[in-house]
């Protein structure tokens, strides 16, 4: 008889905030909640917070610019896996289409362009969809359970 397949417990956290830089810390706290629900350690949670913060920062600065709008962040936690959806209604932008970073000389380091690099390095998957007037950015982070 095959073993009974039980679906791992799913935990959701979701928050919608106005697109303001002062809200970034609040979004980080949400991501931290989600990461903890997935059983991630502090360092992994921090990496996820960084990645989401970079995405949200871009939406505020490059997406909505000075115009207002909202950002909704939803986390889905399963043991060892965190999925984060970041949804906004700014003009369409697909960060997954950006070409990979070009090399640079130590004598002339790049001043910007670190945000999407950080997202890519932290996350295992990044998907972009446009639905109606919404940008939906889905990021996924997996952590192997440590042998304890």
């Amino acid at each position, binding site marked *: 008889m095959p073993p009974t397949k039980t679906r791992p417990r799913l935990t959701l956290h979701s928050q919608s905030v106005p697109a303001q*830089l*002062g809200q*970034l*810390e609040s979004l*980080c706290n949400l991501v931290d909640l989600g990461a903890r629900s997935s059983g991630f350690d502090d*360092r992994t949670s*921090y*990496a996820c*917070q*960084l990645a989401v*913060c*970079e995405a949200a*920062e871009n939406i*505020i*600065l490059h997406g909505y610019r000075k115009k207002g709008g909202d950002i909704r962040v939803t986390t889905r936690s399963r043991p060892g896996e965190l999925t984060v959806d970041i949804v906004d209604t700014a003009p369409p932008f697909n960060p997954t289409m950006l070409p990979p*970073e070009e090399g640079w000389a*130590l004598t*002339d*380091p*790049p*001043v*910007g362009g*670190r*945000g999407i*690099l*950080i997202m890519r*390095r*932290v996350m295992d998957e990044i998907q972009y969809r446009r639905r109606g007037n919404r940008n939906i950015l889905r990021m996924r982070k997996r952590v192997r359970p440590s042998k304890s």
Partner: protein
Amino acid sequence: MEIKSQVYKRVVAVTVTGRVDSGTAGDLEKALSALANEAHNNIVLDLSGVEFLSSSGLRVLVTTLKGVRKVGGDVRLAQPSQRAIDAINLAGLDVLFKVFPDRESAIASY
């Protein structure tokens, strides 16, 4: 975020604590460029108390580095927190900054 600086003869030690993101990076930029304007170009950044460092903060670090390098200065990091190190590494900027295990050795490296 809190910024404290200690001006010495040849070096200025700047202690940054708390959260450095796009909400606060502007203040850091102001503080660091004020020091550069006063010709304090040998900078030690004590990042031991940094709890969050986003690309906006990293941008300030790199901008400052490029500025002081032009006049023979440098930005060196003292006892960065694990979170500061992680952000710098993820951004691929670890090659840019000399890191020292304590303020003393960072200051004495100039």
